[in-house]
């Protein structure tokens, strides 16, 4: 039967105002009971041109939320999953909560694809700010459905209650599906912002939100539905995508971070008959229909490709000294901490002053970045794994000089890379596009392990001078911190730089985009309300080697899990531990004295209990001739409105310099806990990444190139080093803000471990990582 013919428009379009959103409605005489009807919400066309560049057809049912007549619900978000699970669990819980439906009714989550999702923006702060879009959309939707139900029941919306997807008033009842069935409903909601900007669109207006006191879905443990298809092997990962007629590419990246091409090598056709060299300025690649041939031929061609020499980096062994004495910190304006207060010239009776250092880190995904691109009828489609697909779309369009409407980004599961692509690219996407356009064939660019280690961005280093003044009674009179470091958000795609094509600006003082400036911000949200005099300053610079590199490359930096706060929390908490020792006070007790916020008091008290903390001053005064020295340390942090505290117990073997982390206790009060199951898993894993960063991780580089090239030269934690973990989620009852959990934990652990090292040995470890060679120099 022809369904269309059955559907007769019986009414003129009716429009209702829903808290500033606009609901239009047409009814049908449908014979088919399974007619699917959607509530479509489209960006307000009155705002900027972002809606114009969105290839979503707002009239089609592919928008934010779709409610079907069978009571199933689809949600769409431009954010992606990197293993946090939030978009598959917490997002569904939050939408289900606002709608008053069971979480299982949300059967489908469509994410990331720029032609199939409405909002854009980066995958970060998922539960802090980003989910507010869908939460508001859900609230608008619920209000619209309430209004429709009120008309149907002949009652006022206030008298209708919603439970488990059923709207009822007295004896009248209807499900969401029944309310929307046999109608074409379109809800237009107000939005602000630019779709392809760094932060994407924001849903405007203030629909009434459900009171957290009435939550029944939020706060329950929800398993991640994506786990089954992941472990069964059913999911298509980005590296698994195969396009008809595609070529496999391996990029031959320059010999150094500043080398230009002198002469590309040739393919030996007798060995590699189907391989071909492609060069676009300094972007050199070998392609073949056969992947292994591409790998082998690229190795052979790389060996005979000639590059200019370049040396413009200080070398990682000299990095601290370079940051101290070779960088002109006056080129970029300094910034003052938001919590600075009090008197800079107070008189102290004792002072702790020291410098601390965090090296460059790698995001180090287990799978090197891989992307595919194809050009069909003028549309450039990129298949990739990105944390900010709309921003990547902008960058690709800019590089090509094409309109954003000509670019589509499709996203797939891929290896977690912890912030590397929150500005769109992780590497390889733009190279695939340029090669596909040049060859007029679909191209798959798979970086090898060494490409990923040596040509991706890194989390930048920080040098911090801390001074803590104590008064006569051993309390902190004044805290001063001065942080020096390169910027952390270079979103220029590497292929655009190598091919010398237009792209966004590198981090600089005058960059029009605030997140891409060179200033070093004081990210360190202040936790010690009991200290009256606080003076924090940040000093930024340009990326190391970038201005000296003919490629404008050098060491490109990018934010990584708990960015900037990781680098600034380590010096603060390490110094606080040393100041506690100077005061002759237990390190945890010292924090209780100064972190006077009641939530920190509750957290630290809980940590004392959970970690079986023995209150005494550091160091532990163990027998120095013992073959193993043990100690414990503590750290705290405030991030994303969440309160975090961590205790570490370690064993140091002076003869070998090996630090073994024996136990980590983490107590978190992150606010409203949306999904306790996944939050705990995130926090546990965050702790372990923190142990990895504390013990192992440092990017090695010489004057020309990154020399960390594989898992031996950039080691990360193994299972043999996993400590006993005790993660306690202890939310403050009455919190109004959703708790984030994929960050913070990793940034707490290194200073707790360093504090434990000081406790065990009496020697401060003021730089990361605590590798045996460094530890042995401390214990000499």
């Amino acid at each position, binding site marked *: 039967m022809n369904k269309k013919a059955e559907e007769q428009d019986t009414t003129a379009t009716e429009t209702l105002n829903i808290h500033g959103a606009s609901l239009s409605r047409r009814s049908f005489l449908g014979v088919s009971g399974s007619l699917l009807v959607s509530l479509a919400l489209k960006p307000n066309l009155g705002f900027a041109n972002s809606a114009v560049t969105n290839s979503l057809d707002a009239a089609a049912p592919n928008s934010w939320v779709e409610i079907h007549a069978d009571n199933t619900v689809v949600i769409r978000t431009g954010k992606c999953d*990197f*293993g*946090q*699970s939030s978009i598959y669990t917490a997002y569904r819980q939050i939408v289900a909560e606002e709608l008053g439906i069971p979480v299982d009714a949300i059967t489908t989550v469509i994410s990331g694809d720029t032609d199939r999702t409405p909002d854009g923006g980066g995958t970060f702060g998922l539960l802090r700010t980003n989910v507010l879009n869908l939460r508001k959309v859900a609230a608008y939707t619920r209000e619209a459905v309430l209004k429709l139900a009120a008309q149907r029941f002949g009652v006022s919306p206030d008298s209708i209650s919603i439970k488990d997807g059923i709207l009822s008033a007295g004896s009248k009842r209807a499900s969401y599906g029944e309310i929307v069935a046999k109608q074409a409903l379109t809800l237009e909601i107000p939005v602000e912002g630019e779709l392809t900007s760094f932060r994407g669109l924001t849903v405007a207006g203030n629909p009434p939100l459900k009171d957290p006191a009435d939550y029944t879905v939020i706060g329950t443990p929800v*398993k*991640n539905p994506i*786990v*089954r298809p*992941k*472990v*069964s*092997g059913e999911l*298509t*990962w980005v*590296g*698994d995508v195969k396009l008809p007629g595609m070529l496999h590419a391996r990029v031959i990246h320059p010999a150094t971070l500043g080398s230009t091409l002198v002469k590309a090598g040739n393919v030996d056709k007798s060995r590699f008959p189907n391989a071909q060299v492609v060069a676009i300025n300094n972007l050199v690649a070998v392609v073949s229909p*056969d*992947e*292994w041939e591409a*790998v082998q031929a690229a190795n052979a061609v790389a060996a005979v490709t000639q590059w200019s020499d370049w040396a413009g980096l200080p070398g990682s062994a000299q990095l601290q000294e370079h940051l101290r004495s070779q960088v002109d910190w006056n080129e970029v304006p300094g910034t003052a901490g938001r919590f600075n207060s009090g008197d800079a010239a107070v008189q102290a009776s004792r002072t702790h002053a020291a410098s601390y250092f965090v090296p460059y880190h790698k995001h*180090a*995904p*287990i*799978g*090197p970045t*891989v992307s595919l691109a194809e050009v069909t009828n003028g549309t450039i489609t990129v298949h990739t794994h990105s944390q900010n697909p709309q921003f990547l779309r902008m960058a690709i369009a800019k590089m090509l000089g094409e309109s954003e409407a000509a670019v589509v980004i499709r996203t797939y*599961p*891929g*290896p*977690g890379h*912890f912030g590397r692509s929150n500005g769109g690219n992780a590497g390889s996407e733009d190279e695939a596009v340029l090669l596909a356009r040049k060859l007029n064939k679909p191209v798959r660019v*798979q970086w*090898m*392990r060494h490409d990923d280690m040596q040509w991706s961005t890194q989390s930048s280093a920080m040098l911090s001078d801390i001074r803590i003044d104590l008064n006569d009674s051993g309390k902190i009179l004044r805290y001063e911190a001065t942080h020096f470091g390169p910027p952390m958000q270079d979103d220029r795609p590497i292929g655009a730089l190598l091919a010398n094509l237009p792209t966004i600006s590198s981090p600089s003082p005058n960059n029009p985009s605030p997140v891409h400036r060179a200033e070093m911000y004081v990210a360190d949200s202040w936790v010690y309300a009991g200290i009256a005099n606080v003076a924090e300053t940040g000093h930024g610079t340009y990326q190391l080697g970038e201005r000296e590199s003919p490629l404008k490359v050098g060491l490109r930096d990018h934010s990584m899990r708990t960015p900037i706060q990781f680098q600034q929390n380590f010096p603060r908490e390490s110094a606080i531990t040393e100041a506690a020792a100077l005061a002759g006070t237990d390190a945890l007790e010292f924090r209780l004295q100064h972190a006077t916020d009641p939530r920190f008091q509750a957290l630290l008290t809980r940590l004392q209990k959970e970690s079986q903390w023995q209150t005494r001053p550091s160091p532990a005064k163990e027998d120095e001739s013992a073959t193993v020295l043990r100690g414990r340390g503590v750290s705290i942090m405030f991030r994303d409105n969440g309160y975090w505290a961590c205790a570490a117990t370690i064993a140091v073997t002076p003869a070998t310099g090996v630090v073994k982390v024996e136990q980590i206790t983490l107590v978190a009060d992150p606010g409203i806990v949306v999904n306790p*199951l*996944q939050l705990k*898993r*995130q926090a*546990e*894993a*965050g*702790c*372990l*990444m923190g*142990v*990895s960063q504390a013990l192992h991780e440092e990017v090695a580089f010489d004057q020309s190139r990154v020399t960390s090239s*594989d*898992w*031996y030269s950039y080691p*990360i*934690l*193994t*299972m*043999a080093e*996993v400590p006993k*973990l005790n993660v306690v989620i202890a939310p403050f009852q009455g919190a109004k803000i959703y708790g984030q959990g994929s960050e913070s934990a990793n940034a707490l652990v290194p200073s707790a471990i360093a504090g434990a090292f000081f406790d065990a040995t009496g020697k401060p470890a003021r730089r990361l990582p605590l590798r045996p060679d460094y530890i042995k120099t401390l214990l000499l």
Partner: protein
Amino acid sequence: MTVISVNGEKREVKASPEVPLLYVLRGELDVMTPKFGCGLAQCGACSVLVDGEEVRACITPIAALDGKEITTVEGLPARWQQQRNLADDAERLHPVQQAWIDKQVPQCGICQFGMMIKTTELLESNPTPNDAAIVDALTTSGPSPHLCRCGSYAAIKEGIHHAADLMAASGGDKS
């Protein structure tokens, strides 16, 4: 021509003998769960079972595998069904896979194919491993430790113990 058995099916391989198994599985045979991680046998993302033993597919030329039996994660449910002589059930996964779901082990998940392969090898030879045996399997028993960047190691340990319990609890009679 090299002939290998992949997940119970005999496959004739066109690729030349020096091509690593990983490229043959993914490129020629469309068996996609072994992932490219390093190409250097340093991470374990590409692990498969060869006659029941974990092998890094990224460095193993197929010349070494003629006549061998390869099992990847795609083949784990059938392997378990055959080992325990279980009735057909399209929904049933291998207990290791089921344990990974029950304990919500994966985060990004890219390393978990290799982790599950290594765990299967372990539990087939040691059905009740203690923590030390688990750590040994995942760090010192092979060419390199199996690496997880997300830090899911604690969850993996829980998953392995749970998988051992599931395997012990499974009857194995056709029902």
